[in-house]
């Protein structure tokens, strides 16, 4: 399993639009599962409503983890997405 921490910079936090794009991205790594953890709660990044339901705000630090055959690729992809969008 690979993981990294990221602090949200977007003033709206993880709102609907990037959450949707992130869910789409996270589904694209086959059997590799990407998760988001905040304050001990973990959900899959592909679970759009659950991700939004975490209410991740600007300044919050989240942990992204990936497990599976494409975990390196998934971590890279999600990192790039977060830096560009959130």
């Amino acid at each position, binding site marked *: 399993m690979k993981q990294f921490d990221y602090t949200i910079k977007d003033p*709206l*936090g993880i*709102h*609907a*639009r990037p*959450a*949707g794009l992130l*869910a*789409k991205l996270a589904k694209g790594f086959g059997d590799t599962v990407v998760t988001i953890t905040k304050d001990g709660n973990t959900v*899959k990044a*592909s*679970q*759009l*409503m*659950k991700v*939004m*339901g975490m*209410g991740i*705000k600007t300044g919050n630090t989240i942990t992204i983890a990936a497990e599976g055959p494409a975990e390196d690729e998934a971590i890279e992809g999600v990192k790039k997405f977060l830096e560009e969008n959130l």
Partner: protein
Amino acid sequence: MILLQGKGVSKGVTSGPIYFFRRSDATVTKYDAPDQAAEKARLAAAQEKSIEQLNRLADKCREEAGDEAAILFETHAMFVEDEDYVEAIMDTLAEEGCNVEYAVQCAGEQFAAMFAAMDDAYMQARAADIRDVTGRILNNLMGVVEGGIDSDVPVVLAADDLAPSETLQLDKSKILGFMTQGGSGNSHTAILARTMGIPAICGLGESLKTEMEGRIAYIDGETGKVALEPDEITLTAYNAKLKKQQEMKVLMDTMKGQKDVTLDGREILVYCNIGSPDDLPAVLNNDGQGIGLFRSEFLYLKATDFPDEETQFKAYKAVAEGLNGKRVVIRTLDIGADKQVSYFDMKKEENPALGVRAIRICLNRPEIFRTQLRALYRASAYGKVAIMFPMITSVWEVKECKRACAKVMEELKAEGIPFNPETEIGIMIETPASIFVADALAKEVDFFSVGTNDLTQYTLACDRQANDLGKFFDPHHPAVLRAIKIAADAAHAAGIWIGICGELGADISLLETFLAIGIDELSVSPSSVLPLRAAIRKSIAKTCTLEKLES
């Protein structure tokens, strides 16, 4: 008179019969459905149909309201297939052995409630998205056709709150304005009303009653007021606002695409003043012929440290490209006086308006100047950029500015970075000194632009920040107008153009004076472009006189 007070979220006034938005009345009833496989197949079909509709809506939206709104519908399409949402539906089906409509409704309520309970206003508003998606799936399950407005005349559409897809599917030719019980400035009704340019009032609460249907409402999207059977005072005020709005509308429609030319054929450039790249759509929507003043201060004012070259370059490039070959005059930083920035670490001054401000900072601190000039020249490769220096009093200042420009151009050339070596250089005419030496200054630059606010302040010795100077601070003072004429004569003698980028440019009562002086360009706020154009097209330049310069 009945007066309702809500929150105005999209400007404009209108009046018309109230019409309550009708949702499909199909109510969901629960019943036993022994053939669960058939229920699941119905769900799959309804999901597929919903996604198809949402993608179509996204396409439509992309054309009408832009990308941001389109992505919303694409997100809705993802909600339809969201694994937790679908799992909740499946759980209900398995536990209750019921029909799929009931299961969908339960899942919708469950997730809408989750969002509604969040402590963040933005997320709370997303409950409406979940209900909207759920309603769509239900409509598709029950074969309900989404309806428009069943009325022959245009109406003021009333609702509890409108879901985004509901707003977009409405027949816009039938809607004069919106009024809703719920919602906020962030609600979809508000956002789409603003995009469509029609008035909207939200948050009317219980005061908006369904029995008001059919009565004539007078609504003002600026003040948030709704009047039924208005009294005379209210009606007079409403009519005055409406008249103004209609005149503007007529101007908008007829003036777009027209030339800024007087009846006797004198062309004058009508440009826009902007403060950031965000103002670009306003320039284009109002058909500005260029940008006469792009204040670069926003880059410095919003930052906590000096903005780097790349940040500046991106902002300048965005505007240069957005104007697509039309002239963009970018003024170098005009910090100091009333615009203070902490990280500039300036000494406290007794008289900051007469202190180290604008070009004086740049010439004292070449490293700050160089960064901005590099960004400006780099942007010059992407459009018709012109560079303008503020607060000029002396010829030597202009020569130093030009030396700094030449140095930056050499650097860029050596680095192989593209730029336009023919980039126009101009100065602000805003000090009495610049008027007295205007002839000498005109030989050094490609254009003048008069900053009337500062020119008035310095010419009349009136602090523009002071509120109690009243009648003494008079931009129409003959001294100010004569100063403009001296600068204009000097400019024309040297064969360069002169514009006005201060507040006075949009003052239609001075248009004839400016035409008589021979001003070549007026740069005004985007919303003033079309009214100014209308006035120019009614003027006859050769009969304009300089009488305002006398006495």
